């Protein structure tokens, strides 16, 4: 018997001696306090509002984001909605189509929040073509004032469209589709109230309903529509939660064999969720689509711990005929320490993701910590106190049901215990090595960032993303914008050299792989200058003369988001082919190359980055930078806790190795499923690992306890399977079913998270049941040296008179 073991035992005893009286000494007071706290937090939770804070999802300290935030006021207002009308047959130059386009333009005009002066389609008065006449210029609207839906008029419109430089922008190149563009104002100009994006989205959906038929399709994209679609999908998540609850209730019922006990576990777990959500609101956070994952996790973790507790409690009663109080105390003494250690390991694991400098991940980390506090409180205080008052409703029936289940279970477990023998152990380990090699080979292929087409929040086959693809095919604009900011000196707009440098850069960027189109001030100013010069193609240039230059650039309003008020910064907007990390990294590289080697005017600096894809590039870099550290920290913490729990190398390895294998296979799964490493999936690895270790600790502690009592490994494993192993099995299924519904979410990142978590939970369960005993065959002999250092301190004493 060695020193540390003794002290570990006595530390545990000390802790229990301290905590026990609080829970079991003043049970009524405790229940009242917890009840009142729960009510207060429920009240807090009820005030929680969905909150999709976009800035939270980005690394605000990243240098690109500094540029982004600096110019946000000038360039960030590109909050556009795009409605495309596409003729299913023929071209847009049909009277009927024109009429409908006019009606849709009018309808968009009345969408809430729309800046009416800047609605743009070929029907709006701000879309003009320049006609050159002998005396100078004649600007006229593309659609003449005397518009009537006649074939002659439609031909006139077609000719005007050709002179308005709107092909590819308002009219598709193949002339089958036309756009209505509108800008949204974030704040109501009168009331200063923030715009309700959901209402905007709903109105747009009405427009679609009204004008789409078998002749014309209506495609709608824009940030407001994304928010609307995401909010609709979030409502679905609430439904998922109900389904997950029902699933768990059913599983609990089957597992425990008593509906009322199942309900106790379920209800106390709900209390943990209430605590989590209440605390979240108390510290001032909202519930964003990412955070919605956490209640599912909390529910699942709490149920898994609760079921262990209730199961053990019921066993004490049915096998020993103990009172509810005795049974609860015994269970508490047996499970409190490993349970709390496991939960603290979870908390420590979750906390490591706080290191990632992205607010939404930090919030998730804090959120999960709150939830874990709730779980500990519920399972180590509320549940023991509640159970101490209860009696098993029908002991005889429960015992019978238990016996039947055990007969089935025992046969299976007896067979499974063969896994601790040499032959099967070697086989299992060989398979594991094979899987590890496979995972290690796949790992370098993990994509950073989003890999799907369209808006990454929504699924690739969602209506929004199908619309976005169609619009991207027909027009130059798309939802993927990568903006480079040219920072220069005030009034640079009248300096030819500075402007020429920026224009050259824009052309360079246009020719960079992954860029579909580039839009700058010059696209408009050159057209204006040519317009002032008889419409000659050879005048589509940046004029050298300062006055002509001033005249042509002044025609471009700052509201385009292409330049700031004093023209000391210009936006170079690149529409990219997609938002794959490799595409964005290539563009970033190209911009840096130009700035370093090609830029000849040092008064101009090309700064990264803005636009949604610029932000994504920053996020990708942050994710790439953090990926390895997060994994290392999580494992450092997990290994530390494992050592503290068992004080044996065997304990650390038997739990840690399967965990590492699952993490490696998680990467392989990401490659196979095309899931990228991003803000949504980075924390999932930590979550899965944190919960995976939970199984390991429960499983190994029972095996080790058995061995320390003198059992053979095989018997200890058999015993473990009969007690906590069963619970592990149940928990794995329960956790997986809790998040499995997420696979059906309309939100792509929730789906990705769901897949990874289901995999993580089930794989870790298999690891704890199959791989752990195989490893133990080679490693666990060490436990015999710690004979009599029981890990379940004082459980037996619960039955002795106090």
């Amino acid at each position, binding site marked *: 018997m060695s020193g540390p073991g003794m002290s570990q035992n006595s530390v545990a005893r000390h802790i229990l001696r301290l905590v026990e009286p609080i829970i079991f000494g003043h049970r009524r007071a405790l229940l009242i306090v917890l009840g009142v706290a729960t009510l207060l937090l429920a009240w807090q939770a009820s005030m929680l509002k969905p909150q999709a804070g976009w800035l939270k999802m980005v690394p605000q300290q990243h240098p690109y984001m500094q540029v982004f935030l600096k110019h946000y006021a000038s360039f960030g207002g590109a909050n556009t909605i795009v409605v495309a009308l596409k003729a299913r047959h023929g071209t847009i130059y049909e009277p009927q189509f024109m009429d409908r386009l006019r009606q849709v333009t009018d309808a968009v005009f009345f969408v809430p929040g729309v800046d009416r002066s800047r609605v743009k389609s070929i029907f709006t008065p701000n879309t003009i073509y320049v006609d*050159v*006449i*002998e005396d100078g210029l004649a600007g006229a609207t593309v659609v003449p004032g005397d518009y009537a839906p006649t074939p002659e008029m439609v031909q006139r419109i*077609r*000719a005007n*469209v*050709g*002179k308005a430089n709107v*092909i590819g922008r308002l009219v598709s190149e193949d*002339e089958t589709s036309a756009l209505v563009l509108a800008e949204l104002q974030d704040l109501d100009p009168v009331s200063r109230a923030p715009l309700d994006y959901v209402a905007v989205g709903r109105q747009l959906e009405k427009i679609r309903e009204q004008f789409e038929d078998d002749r014309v399709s209506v495609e709608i994209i824009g940030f407001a529509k994304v928010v609307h679609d995401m909010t609709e999908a979030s409502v679905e998540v609430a439904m998922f939660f109900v389904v997950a609850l029902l699933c768990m209730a059913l599983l609990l019922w089957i597992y425990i064999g008593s509906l009322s006990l199942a309900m106790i576990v379920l209800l106390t777990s709900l209390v943990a969720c209430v605590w989590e959500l209440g605390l979240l609101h108390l510290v001032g956070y909202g519930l964003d689509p990412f955070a919605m994952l956490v209640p599912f996790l909390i529910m699942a973790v709490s149920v898994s711990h609760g079921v262990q507790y209730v199961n053990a409690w019921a066993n004490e009663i049915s096998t020993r005929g103990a009172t509810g109080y005795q049974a609860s105390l015994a269970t508490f003494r047996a499970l409190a320490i490993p349970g709390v250690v496991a939960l603290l390991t979870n908390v420590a694991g979750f906390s490591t993701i706080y290191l990632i400098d992205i607010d939404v991940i930090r919030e998730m980390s804090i959120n999960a910590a709150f939830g874990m506090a709730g779980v500990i409180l519920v399972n180590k205080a509320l549940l023991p106190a509640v159970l101490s008052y209860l009696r098993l409703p029908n002991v005889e029936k429960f015992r019978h049901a238990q016996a039947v289940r055990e007969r089935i279970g025992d046969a299976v477990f007896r067979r499974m215990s063969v896994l601790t023998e040499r032959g099967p152990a070697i086989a299992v380990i060989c398979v594991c090595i094979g899987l590890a090699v496979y995972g290690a080979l796949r790992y370098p292929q993990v994509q950073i960032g989003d890999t799907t087409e369209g808006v990454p929040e929504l699924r690739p086959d969602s209506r929004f993303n199908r619309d976005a693809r169609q619009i991207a095919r027909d027009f130059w604009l798309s939802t993927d914008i990568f903006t480079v900011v040219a920072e220069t000196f005030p009034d640079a707009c009248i*300096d030819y*050299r*500075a402007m020429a440098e920026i224009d*050259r850069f824009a*052309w*360079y960027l*246009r*020719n960079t792989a992954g860029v579909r189109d580039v839009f700058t001030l010059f696209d408009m100013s050159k057209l204006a200058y040519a317009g002032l010069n*008889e*419409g*000659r*193609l*050879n005048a*589509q*240039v940046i004029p*050298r003369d300062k006055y002509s230059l001033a005249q042509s650039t002044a025609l471009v309003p700052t509201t385009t988001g292409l330049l700031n008020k004093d023209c000391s910064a210009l936006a170079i907007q690149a529409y990219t082919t997609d938002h794959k990390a490799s595409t964005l990294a290539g563009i970033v590289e190209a911009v840096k190359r130009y700035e370093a080697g090609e830029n*000849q*005017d*040092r*008064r101009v600096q090309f700064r990264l980055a803005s636009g949604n894809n610029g932000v994504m590039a920053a996020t990708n870099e942050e994710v790439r930078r953090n990926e390895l550290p997060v994994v290392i920290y999580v494992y450092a913490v997990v290994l530390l806790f494992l050592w503290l729990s068992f004080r044996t190398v065997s304990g650390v390895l038997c739990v840690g190795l399967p965990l590492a294998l699952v993490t490696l296979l998680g990467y392989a799964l990401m490659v196979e499923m095309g899931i990228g490493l991003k803000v949504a999936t980075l924390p999932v690895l930590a979550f899965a690992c944190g919960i995976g270790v939970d199984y390991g600790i429960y499983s190994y502690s029972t095996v080790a306890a058995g061995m320390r009592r003198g059992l053979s490994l095989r018997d200890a494993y058999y015993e473990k399977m009969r007690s906590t192993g069963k619970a592990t099995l149940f928990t794995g299924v329960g956790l997986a079913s809790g998040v499995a519904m997420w696979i059906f979410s309309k939100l792509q990142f929730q789906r990705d998270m769901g897949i990874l978590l289901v995999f993580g939970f089930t794989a870790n369960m298999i690891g704890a049941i199959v791989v752990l005993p195989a490893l133990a065959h080679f490693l666990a002999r060490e436990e015999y040296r710690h004979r009599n250092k029981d890990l379940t301190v004082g459980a037996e004493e619960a039955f002795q008179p106090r």
Partner: protein
Amino acid sequence: MDDRMKRRSLAALVVAAVWFAAGAARADDPAQDPAQAQRAPRPALMAPLAASAPLLDLARAGRRLVAVGARGNIVVSDDGRDWQQVHSPVDVMLTRVFFLDARRGWAVGYDGAILQTGDGGRHWSVQRWVPDRGPLYDVLFLDAQRGFAVGSYGALLRSDDGGAHWQEIDSPIREPGLHFNAIARLADGTLFIAGERGMLARSADEGASWTMLDSPYRGSMFGVLPSGAHGAMIFGLRGSIYVTDDARAVRSIAVDGWDEFDRETVSDPAALAALGWRHVDSPSHESLFRGIADGDQALLTGVNGVVLQVPADGGPVRALASAENETLSGLQPFDGQWIAVGLRGARALPVVAATSPRLATAGAKP
């Protein structure tokens, strides 16, 4: 002083001079104050999309097609489908390209740039670069030595050594300061300039002296083509087309008598005839920028992708259906089809080929 000493002091002097020069160079380093510095020509970026960026003109160098355009881009094609960008020493817009034969060619553009090639457009070098002057709009060589370039605000240059040196021509026709948009040599050797606000001029002595012409139109003329043995066809703003059968006979006007703000378009046929011109009715009113002729008919292109077929004998003008709806600025026949350039770069216009077999089989531009 022995040799070694001499060498050493010389070396010291060189070092000092270099150091001095470096210091001086730093003092007025163009990067420090670019606004003050004379801009040097900067090579065009080699860009995969050069052939689909705006192209301003298209010419034939033997079998090869050569097009020039925005940002100094020069692209060549041997089959009319695949275009390769060639290295261009400037990145400013090139407005016109001219080939004397299969090898020798010139291109002009902004910042007074004149480029020259001796190998059919593969390699180009700068002959002239004057960034404080306006753009040049057209270039014409009579033979390997004698050439002319015209441009904005009455720019009129000539070279007698194949473009190695360019001199401004001192002529009264430059006095109004109007843009000279195009220069052409008619079938009989007469030189003809068309320009801003109806400005027209001719030279019967190969550019030695120039005569201002009375104009039938007050809008700008963008192009001039030979028409028949002595005639010319001029075209420009809003689809205006005029033809004369004898450019030597059209009425001239004294430069003193020219006031571009007081000119009227002549629409009375008799008055027109008195000037020596005939108006050509056209179904289109889009501005025409560029044309190509083979003696008895011409194809003109311009805004909205318009392509007009104009018979020289006065027959009706036909607007050919074209798939384009945006500005075209150059056209060449090539292997039974038409290759056009414009706002969206280079492309084939198959529709035109089908409707104009005769021109389509013609060789290089006359």
